[in-house]
């Protein structure tokens, strides 16, 4: 790893200013970024830690939403959303491993937008809103393909507002070495219909499976999905799974998510 300057701001304004100076990179929990630095996949001039920035890790509940600070760790989200939104709690409690969950954060994961990460599926399936230092971005507009998001350079996620579903479940087929999702599906039922988001499968990153949503909006039962498959053409293919295998997993994980919701 090449050396860098280290900024440890205490306020959001200071963090934004530090990120505006040259080739700087924000550091949240670092559970993806530090391994990337060590492999020299990234080599910024400055790293701006967000750990000390005040007010970025609170979790607040309203009548029908959770507002989760971007720096809330997976462990904390797993603990503190268990009563209010068990599907989210379970998702957070199954990310990576125990040590990763102590450090890794919701905001870091969303900003990275790994095509196999869990939170993007949750954000898209719940219709979450991503708040930054500059604006609010609907999840629908936030994810722009593998590792790409709507965030501008130096823009910092501050919190995420998640509408709590009437029923929901996230089903992940674990890739056992990385513990990311080989395929993961978040299915959620809301008064105005069902939403289904898929991670780990598409070369375009997380996506909504609208055909499944239409069927589940009529009837939120696994049998409503009978006969429904997804084309393998745009699936990821790597040493872990072929395109047809991933496409098959999308159907199976969606059924299981609905069954367990």
């Amino acid at each position, binding site marked *: *790893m*090449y*050396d*860098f*300057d*280290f900024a*440890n701001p205490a306020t959001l304004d200071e963090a934004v200013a530090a990120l505006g100076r040259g080739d700087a990179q924000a*550091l949240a929990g*670092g*559970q993806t970024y*530090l*391994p990337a*630095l*060590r492999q020299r996949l990234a080599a910024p001039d400055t*790293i701006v*830690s967000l*750990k000390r920035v005040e007010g970025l890790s609170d979790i607040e509940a309203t009548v029908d939403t959770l507002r989760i600070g971007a720096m809330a760790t997976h*462990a904390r989200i797993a603990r503190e959303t268990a009563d209010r939104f068990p599907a989210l709690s379970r998702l957070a409690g199954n990310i*990576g*491993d*125990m*040590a*990763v969950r*102590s*450090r890794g954060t919701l905001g870091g994961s969303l900003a990275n937008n790994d095509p196999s990460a869990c939170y993007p599926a949750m954000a898209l399936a719940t219709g979450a809103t991503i708040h930054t230092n500059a604006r609010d971005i609907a999840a629908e507009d936030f994810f722009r393909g593998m590792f790409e998001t709507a965030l501008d350079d130096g823009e910092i996620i501050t919190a995420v507002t998640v509408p709590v579903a009437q029923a929901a479940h996230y089903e992940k087929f674990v890739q056992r*070495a990385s*513990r990311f999702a080989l395929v993961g599906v978040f299915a959620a039922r809301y008064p105005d219909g069902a939403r289904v988001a898929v991670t780990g499968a598409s070369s375009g990153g997380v996506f909504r499976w609208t055909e499944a949503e239409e069927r589940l909006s009529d009837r939120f039962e696994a049998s409503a999905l009978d006969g429904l498959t997804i084309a393998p053409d745009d699936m990821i293919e790597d040493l872990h799974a072929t395109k047809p295998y991933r496409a098959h997993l999308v159907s199976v994980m969606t059924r299981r998510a609905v069954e367990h919701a």
Partner: protein
Amino acid sequence: MPEISMRVNGTDRTVRVENRTLLVHALRDGLRLTGTHVGCDTSQCGACTIHVDGAPVKACSMLAVEADGAEVETIEGQAMSDGSLNTIQQAFQDHHGLQCGFCTPGMVMATAALLRENPKPGDAEIRHALKGNICRCTGYQGIVNAILAASGQPVPAAMDSEPAPVAAE
């Protein structure tokens, strides 16, 4: 070079590091606490698991400068004050929870973190908690047994009988 201050196993320590120094190297090279092991270069093995402000973290996946002001616990702080093994360590010895011992510091620290949150974990909870700690010797059953014993729970009998015969086709 920045100087960081940490409370390590109950003692205030300061150490000079580079911004890029990983916490595990600050502990091993800076403070000579070499019980925290480096078992991989990909953040996957868990051998460097320590506690920072009470939570288990991989010391290879945190910058030393991020630990400035933190409370750090390492394997060196686990033994009793007279040097004898603590309950977890003794259980690992008693139940064959280690062979080569390389992963053991991380296993013990992960166990300590687990038992702090969940004093009586079941088999599945133990295995879930150890997902980030890789052992290449034991096959894990001895480790699971050690953690059951360390938490005062019955340990399943060893498989001391002949394996069941394979059914004829």
